[in-house]
């Protein structure tokens, strides 16, 4: 709601065209307008976090054994595994496990596109979704961390269940632990998500907040009665929320 006093201080308000006056009434300078830009800000922030996560490690595991006093560390990002991979591969060959960097080849290739897709999707939903589709925002943010966890679990399961039967040491199939302390042979392990994962989670939180805020804005929108799957105003468009 623009106050008259505020308008009178603004030379623009004296422009005599009808259109200008209409715009003034409804333009995103008022309470709802600020909220709308806030939603977009949250969405952009989430995209930034998601992009940043691409360049950060998502998960790490450290393995300790008597003969590795400094431990072995592997760092998993969306594009591959780094750290003491060569050593872990040598150790793993004894039980016939595949090489670390043979894991998730497709996922690693597609991760960059995935991030780009999430960015586009977030913007698309934020700008175009109708009021019933607000939750899509949170859902889009949920995709990456959830997919990462699911996929990691899948690959761990797969690695632990496709051991080469010709290997010197035969083990019953197993699935390694994704979080916290574990014990494997003489190794004590500690695994936990890392910066990239938490950035993605933070992105999700921002998007959830954005979805909530957006639903509040939509609830107060002048067009709420006629709102379909698509927001007719592109959410922050010129006539967004125009009073009916």
């Amino acid at each position, binding site marked *: 709601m623009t106050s008259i006093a505020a308008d009178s201080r603004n030379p623009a308000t004296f422009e005599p065209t009808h259109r200008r006056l209409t715009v003034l009434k409804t333009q995103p300078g008022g309470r709802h307008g600020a909220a709308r830009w806030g939603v977009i800000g949250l969405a952009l922030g989430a995209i930034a976090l998601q992009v940043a996560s691409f360049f950060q490690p998502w998960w790490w*595991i*450290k*393995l*300790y*054994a*008597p*003969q*590795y*006093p400094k*431990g*072995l560390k*592997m760092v*998993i990002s969306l594009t591959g*595994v780094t750290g*003491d991979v*060569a*050593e*872990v591969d*040598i*150790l*793993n*060959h*004894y*039980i016939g*496990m595949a090489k*670390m960097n043979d*894991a998730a080849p497709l996922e690693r290739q597609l991760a960059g596109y995935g991030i780009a897709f999430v960015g586009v999707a977030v913007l698309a939903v934020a700008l175009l979704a109708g009021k019933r589709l607000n939750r899509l925002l949170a859902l889009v943010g949920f995709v990456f961390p959830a997919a990462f966890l699911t996929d*990691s679990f899948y*690959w*761990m*399961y797969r*690695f*632990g269940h496709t051991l080469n039967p010709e290997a*010197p*040491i*035969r*083990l*019953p199939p*197993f*699935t*390694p*632990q994704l979080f916290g*302390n*574990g*014990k*494997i*042979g*003489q*190794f*004590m*392990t*500690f*695994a936990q998500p890392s910066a990239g994962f938490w950035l993605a989670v933070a992105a999700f939180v921002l998007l959830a907040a954005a979805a909530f805020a957006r639903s509040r804005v939509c609830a107060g929108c002048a067009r709420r009665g006629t709102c379909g799957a698509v927001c007719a105003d592109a959410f922050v468009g010129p006539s967004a929320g125009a009073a009916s």
Partner: protein
Amino acid sequence: MQVTIGKVLGLGGALLGATVAAAACENKAEQKPGAAQSGALGASQSLKQLMEARGLTEADVEAALKTYVPGGKHDEYMIFASGGHSGQVLVLGVPSMRLLKVIAVFAPEPWQGYGYGGESDKVLAGGDQNGKRIGWADVHHPNLSETKGDYDGKFLFVNDKANGRVAVIDLGDFNTKQIVANPLVGSDHGGAFVDPNTEYVIETSQYPVPLGRDYAPITEYKEKYRGVAMFWKFDREKGRIDPAQSFAVELPPYTQDLADAGKLVSDGWVFINSFNTEMAVGGTLEGKPPIESGASKNDMDYLHILDWRKAERLVKDGKATTIKGMRVLPMKVAADEGALALVGEPKSPHGCDVTPDGTGIVVGGKLDTHATVYEFSKIKSLIDQKKFEGKDEYGIPILAFKESIRGQVEIGLGPLHTVFDDKGFAYTSVFIESVVAKWSMKDLKVTEKLSVHYNIGHIMAAEGDTVSPDGKYVVAMNKMSMDRFTKVGPLFPQNFQLVDTTGEQMRILVDAPIGIGEPHYSQMIKIDKLAPHAAYKPGENPYTGKVDPHAVLSPKDARIVRNGTTVDVYMTVIRSHFVPDRIEVDEGDTVNLHMTSLESAEDQVHGFALNMYDVNVSLEPGKHENISFKADVPGVFPFFCTEFCSALHLEMAGYFLVKPKGG
């Protein structure tokens, strides 16, 4: 195979490293295993009881506390010590005095795979004399490379007194990279030492022979026999001595002994002492006096003073003659051009050590009770003024003794070598008296003597022969241990004694038995000046520092290639298998094994041994080895790993089959 080595990690799956045991730790993963254990001795009462039970004095306990280095903690200094007759170099930690490594240098050493068919054979071949492999050495004086007169921790040089050779050890991998053989003489003693910037590695001869080791009757000793000061040009970039750029200076047939390079003000000069200026040649069977008495007649011998920069210039100007491919500057030229002079030194001296500030040269009397301190500035001005007392029979000018010295220190019986601390004190080893004599360089007075056990030869101080000694520690290197250790038969260990010089009085902290040879000199360097690496880059040949052209960086590239009667085997080595692991050749084939370790983890070492063929190499992470031999014995020969690399180490094996001719 139900080795219950447990389950495995998945995406980080993992197993057995070297030992399968352990495991028992219940620690949480993020707390590293092996948390500190608290000692059982809490109360001082029980400490007293323990001291009584073990018969320890308070001084013993203090010494123990000063030297005990718990596992996992590291020593403060590192000693590089001559390994004497072993032909190797010993590496010890200080203050623990524990042996950390024996670096293979002049003699084959199986653990390091040194001299058993691999690339190191070429290094040993560099030390061949007269085309013959010399299988041993008497390592005398290790010297660390210096920059501006201070240890830089990059290289170590040692001499083989017995056969006149010098070795270059790279402290990047603590590995001997080069041996050069002196073509002129057969023995050396003054060396290997370096000038303050390691432009040259210097080696002076011991027993005179006709240069080039040709025959000349002993009756022509004075005319034909000679000594040399050898200047091996060191190419720091390449980390090798360049014999083509090296030269020697001919010296009279006085038995040259120890030597040292000047530093700071005396940089550019070399000082070499000598005995047997009498030129006695023995003849015991003919009833003549042995060399020992013939060589001890004169009250004075000669300290040689050599302006090596001038000698270098003269050689560059073409004043040298060539003997056995080595440029030799005749002593006549050196003397006439003012590059070589002599000054008397009492009697049958030993030790020749330049003071940290470069102004003085300390020479031990050995058969005289003094250490004489020469003043470089006096020597220099006498030479500049050409003020000579006379000339020896070879025309070398002699400086007046009295006018060349700062003074003499009354040391005691048998002063030998001198080292220095950071507080203006010198420490001289006194052989006959079995003491370390500490004396002040200010007034040349002995302040303290410490009994050592027994018959101290060399002495060494922490960085004590650099321009900036550290003080703190002195090591007495004793020739005899007598009652100091448990008996091990008639050949006793030698004894290194670590001496604490920080207190009011010198104190022996620990005796370290040396059971591998009679060590001579050593040097002690602060640990932080060393930066050795723990692995080679993948496929690196340690002797070229580059990836070997035959390197095999993946098992996919492993192969066997036959070319006529030559078989090249390209092999990868990784836990716990060789690729290939079956090699079949015909009797008489030349076999070239090219093998690369694909390991990269610290301390993950394999060996490769082929039995009955005397082949054994060590393959540290990343290292490449080339082994070449003739398959001259038909039969079946297992090859296998010789380092307990993993739980499946014994399984790391293969077969080398040699088909008999016509078989």
